[in-house]
């Protein structure tokens, strides 16, 4: 087993509510993180990602200018953002399935429902760090593999191709066959 050195992790927290940003910042600082940058809307969230190159983004869904789902999509677009592999934890008061699916399909790494707790936030970060998910690219999606379970016997049209563990840092380098 290994422990997380939070002082090595840089966060951006995007939430339009100042109180919620303060709560999340308090939790992260108590975990041991020292570099936490805040953004109050989707646009400034994207700017902060570009400016500070965080290790993890924590974002609300409902925000002015553009929301957390759009922010996630923009980050996952390698033509629009320099950090398409950035782990993204969506932290939202939306708990309905449709919102979880929307976040997942935009490329979110983890989803966490408000009210936030120290335990739940820690576990999501731990998952991001200790159990990183492979990235996949399809015609309509680039992001963490949305499957949590790998069935080695699956042979349908959505089966994964390519060698597991291929370490291709730039998603633009991955060519899809026509």
């Amino acid at each position, binding site marked *: *087993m*290994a*422990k*997380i*050195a*939070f002082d*090595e*992790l840089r966060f951006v927290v995007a939430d339009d*509510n100042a*109180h*919620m940003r*303060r*709560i999340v910042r*308090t*939790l992260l600082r*108590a*975990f*041991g993180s020292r570099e936490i940058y805040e953004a109050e809307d989707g646009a400034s969230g994207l700017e902060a990602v570009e400016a500070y190159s965080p*290790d*993890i983004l924590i974002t*609300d869904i*409902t925000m002015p200018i553009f929301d957390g789902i759009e922010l996630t999509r923009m980050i996952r677009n390698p033509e629009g953002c320099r950090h398409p*592999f*950035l*782990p993204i934890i969506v932290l*939202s*008061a939306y708990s309905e399935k449709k919102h979880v699916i929307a976040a997942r399909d935009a490329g979110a790494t983890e989803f966490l429902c*408000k*009210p*936030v707790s*120290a*335990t739940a936030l*820690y576990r999501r970060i*731990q998952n*991001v*760090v*200790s159990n*990183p*998910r*492979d*990235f*996949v*690219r*399809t*015609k309509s999606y680039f992001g963490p*593999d949305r499957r949590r379970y790998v069935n080695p016997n699956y042979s349908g*049209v*959505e089966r*994964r*191709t*390519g*060698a*597991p*563990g*291929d370490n291709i*840092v730039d*998603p633009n380098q*991955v060519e*899809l*066959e026509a």
Partner: protein
Amino acid sequence: MQQHSSNANTAMTRQVNKTGINLRDKCLRPGDDNEAAQQAITRAEQALEHLSVNFDDWIVTESRQLAKSRDDAKAAGFSENALRDLFQAAHNLKGQATTLGYPLADEICASLCRLIDKIPDKSRLPLLLIDQHVDAVRAVVAEGAKGTDNPKASVLAKRLHDVTGDFLAQEAARAGAA
């Protein structure tokens, strides 16, 4: 690379890498993960406890914002933008009221969000029921009804939840019959 032809949207799913960002190497250190996690979570809960001296002020601010959004929405004839702002204020409060110590305010705001979000015809939003939700939140906060033990506040939250459910069912039936 394999090509699949039966589903244009999902074919050619390519596993492109392990994560792009290797946070394991960056911030995992030898040590007892469970013990470190428990210590970090305990520190975070203590930090939230220290922060909680602000929570009563914060919930008052948020409930005032909710009331202001309600007043603005009324003045604007419940225009689309005004209604969105009212939903946003209720949603913000829903997301943090439990953390701030007022789970019943969270429940009431969840009911108000459901009312605004689910009603098939926004022009039929019941102003009285909106008022009752907003005034109930303010009453819960004014009474300092923390936790879920306050009998009056509990009954109020449940009653609003039930009335909203009945009303939405009627509206759905009406919309279906039209």
